[in-house]
C-alpha cells in the first residue's frame, strides 16, 4: 500500500455546520437555562418523555464522546481513578465522574448539574451503578428503567413490564417538575421522534448506493442530534437537510471515499480520538465503512397509534439488550443490505456488553458469508490503551487480503 494516499480526506458534508450549530445551541441552553430542569439520561433512555415535559436532556455519554474526540478523556478518567474507580470501568463513566468532580470537560465548566437522573439499563449494567454514584454525588433523585434482556424472543410480559415503568416515569417526572404530563403533547413529541427516526434511517440507507455517499465515520458525527434531541422539530429539519444532501450526492455520483473499492461494516462504538486517522486510513486504502451496528441503534420502530407500547418495545429491543443469535442476524442483515466485503470489529475495552461475543460473531459471519472479519483492540475514549501502529498494521493487512 502506498503512503501517498494518506492525505486524502473524506468528502466534506455541507450540513455539518448546521449540526454543530444545533448542538452548540443545545448545550448553551442547557448551561444557561433558569426555567427548564436538567435531567442526565443514558444513551438508550426514552428521551421523548423529557422533551414532552420541557426537561432538557443531558447525555454524559455524548459528552464522553466529545471528550474522547477532543482527547481530554484520559485526564478526566485519571481524576476518577484517583478517587478509586478501577481502570477497567467504562471510560465514559470514568470521564463523566472525573468531569463532574473537576467541573470540566469538552464544554466549558463541564456539563450543567442535573436536577434528576434517568437511567435505562438496556445498554449495560454499568449505567445503573454509574448513575447511583451520580445520584449520591449530586444528591438528586434517580429513576431506573429496567429493560429485561431478550434471550430468544421478547415476551408480552416484558413489554408490559417496561410499559408500566413508562407510566411510573411519568409520575416521577410530574413530581420532579411540578408540572402535569400531557398525553397530547407527548403524542406530538412521539410523532416528531418517529419522523426524525425515519429520516435518520433514510440517511443511513443512502449508504446502500455504490459509491456510498456516506461512511460510518460521518454517521458517528451526525448521530448526535438523533441521540440527544429526537422529538424536537430542529432534529426533523436537520435530518431532512442531511438526507437531501446525501440524495444529491447519489444523483451526482459522489462517494464519501473518493475511489471506493471495498465496502465494510463496522461493529461497536467509535474510537473517538482516532476517528480522523482511521477515516483517512480506510479511505486511503479505498475502503468505505458503509454501515455499522452502533448508529442503527437509534433507527428504532415507533408506532404512532400506540406510542407507549411501541416505545417500551423499541427500548427493550436495542442491539445491546439482545442475545448473540439475534445480534448475528442483524449483522448478517447489514452485510447483505449494504453489500459489504468484510467486517471490522472494534473490541472495546470499555464496553463489555458490546465486545463480549465478538470472536464468535466474527467466526459466524465469515462462515455464513465467506467474508473476512477483522478485530482491532482499542477503547472508545481512553487513548492510553491504543496503539496506532498496531491498528494500522492490522487494517492494512486486512485490506491487502480482501
Amino acid at each position, binding site marked *: 500500500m502506498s503512503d501517498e494516499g494518506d492525505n486524502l480526506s473524506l468528502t466534506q458534508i455541507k450540513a455539518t455546520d448546521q449540526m454543530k450549530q444545533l448542538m452548540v445551541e443545545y448545550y448553551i441552553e442547557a448551561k444557561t437555562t433558569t426555567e427548564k430542569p436538567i435531567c442526565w439520561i443514558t444513551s438508550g433512555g426514552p428521551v421523548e418523555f423529557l422533551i414532552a415535559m420541557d426537561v432538557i436532556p443531558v447525555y454524559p455519554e455524548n459528552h464522553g464522546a466529545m471528550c474522547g474526540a477532543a482527547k481530554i478523556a484520559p485526564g478526566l478518567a485519571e481524576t476518577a481513578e484517583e478517587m478509586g474507580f478501577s481502570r477497567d470501568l467504562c471510560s465514559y463513566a470514568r470521564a463523566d465522574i472525573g468531569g463532574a468532580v473537576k467541573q470540566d470537560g469538552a464544554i466549558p465548566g463541564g456539563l450543567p448539574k442535573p436536577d434528576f437522573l434517568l437511567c435505562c439499563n438496556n445498554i449495560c449494567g454499568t449505567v445503573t451503578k454509574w448513575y447511583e454514584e451520580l445520584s449520591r454525588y449530586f444528591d438528586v433523585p434517580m429513576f431506573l428503567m429496567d429493560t429485561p434482556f431478550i434471550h430468544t424472543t421478547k415476551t408480552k410480559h416484558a413489554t408490559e413490564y417496561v410499559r408500566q415503568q413508562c407510566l411510573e416515569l411519568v409520575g416521577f417526572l410530574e413530581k420532579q417538575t411540578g408540572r402535569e404530563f400531557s398525553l397530547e403533547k407527548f403524542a406530538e413529541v412521539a410523532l416528531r421522534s418517529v419522523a426524525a427516526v425515519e429520516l435518520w434511517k433514510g440517511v443511513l440507507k443512502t449508504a446502500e448506493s455504490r459509491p456510498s455517499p456516506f461512511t460510518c465515520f460521518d454517521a458517528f458525527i451526525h448521530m448526535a442530534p438523533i441521540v440527544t434531541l429526537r422529538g424536537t422539530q430542529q432534529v426533523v429539519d436537520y435530518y431532512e437537510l442531511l438526507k437531501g444532501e446525501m440524495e444529491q450526492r447519489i444523483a451526482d455520483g459522489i462517494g464519501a471515499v473518493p475511489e471506493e473499492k471495498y465496502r465494510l461494516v463496522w461493529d461497536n462504538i467509535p474510537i473517538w480520538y482516532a476517528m480522523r486517522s482511521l477515516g483517512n486510513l480506510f479511505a486511503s486504502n479505498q475502503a468505505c465503512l458503509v454501515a455499522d451496528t452502533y448508529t442503527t441503534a437509534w433507527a428504532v420502530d415507533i408506532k404512532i397509534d400506540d406510542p407507549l407500547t411501541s416505545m417500551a418495545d423499541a427500548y427493550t429491543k436495542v442491539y445491546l439488550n439482545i442475545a448473540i443469535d439475534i445480534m448475528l442476524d442483524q449483522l448478517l442483515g447489514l452485510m447483505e443490505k449494504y453489500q459489504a466485503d468484510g467486517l471490522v470489529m472494534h473490541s472495546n475495552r470499555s464496553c463489555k456488553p458490546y465486545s463480549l461475543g465478538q470472536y464468535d460473531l466474527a467466526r459466524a459471519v465469515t462462515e455464513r458469508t465467506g467474508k473476512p472479519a477483522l478485530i482491532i483492540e482499542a477503547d472508545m475514549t481512553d487513548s492510553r490503551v491504543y496503539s496506532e501502529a*498496531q491498528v494500522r498494521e492490522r487494517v492494512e*493487512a486486512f485490506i491487502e*487480503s480482501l
Partner: protein
Amino acid sequence: MPVAGVDIGSLTAKAVVMDGNEMIARSLIPTGHNSREAGRRALELALEEAGLKESEVDAVVATGYGRLAVDFEAERVTEITCHARGAHFMHPDTRTVIDLGGQDSKAIAIDERGKVLDFVMNDKCSAGTGRFLEVMAHALEIELDDMGELSLGSKSPASISSVCTVFAESEVVSRVAEGASKVDIVAGIHQAIASRVYAMAARIPIETKILMTGGVARNIGVVRALEAKFSREICVPEMPQHTGALGASVIAREKAAAAV
C-alpha cells in the same frame, strides 16, 4: 532484473536481494532508535553483498513497522502479507505461519498461492515475543542464544503462569529463590510462550503444515514447546528472520514484472 525487500522490525532490520528466482544476498542489523536509517543501512549492506548499486534494482518493497519511515523509493506492504508470501516461496505447502518477532506475535492462515486468508496478532502486550525472551535471559543471566539448547535438558519445567512480561520476570526470580534450576525455569518460560501463542493461533484454522518464522524460531526450545502444544510438527526455515524481507522481495519481483 534484481529486486529487493526490506523488513524493518522493532528489534532488527533485514534486507533480501533477489535475482530471478534466487536470493542472492541478505543482511540483518539491529534497528536501534532510527528505523529510517536502519532500513537504508540494511538495504545498502545487502546490495553491497550482491555487488549492485541501488539504481540497478528494479523494484523495492518495504515492510515491517518501519516501512512508513523509509526514505528510498519503495512500495509499502504489511509484514502479514510479506510473511505469508515469504513462507509460501520457501515452502509452498505451508498453510499456517506462526511469526514470533521482537515485539509482536502473529498467526497467519494462507491458501495454496500464499494469499492471506485470516490472521491474528497479540494484543498490546509483549509476552510471548522476542522481547519477552530477552527480559527473561537477562533475569537469569544467560545468553539469549543459549536458551533453546539449555531448555532441552529439562525433566520438570517450572511453572510460569503470569501473562505479563514484568510479572513473569518476578515469577522467574521467585522460582530461582525456590531453588528451581535454570534449565527447568527456561523450559517453563518456553512453555508459557507456547501456551500463549497457541491460545491466540487457535482462533484461526490450523492446517497441516505450520511454518515458524521470526527471530524466536531460532530458539529450539520454543519450537519444541509449540510442537507439543499443537501436537504437530513445526517447520523452521533456514533463515526464519528473513521471511518478511524475502516475501517483500517476491512481491517486488511481481511489481517489476508487471511494470515491464
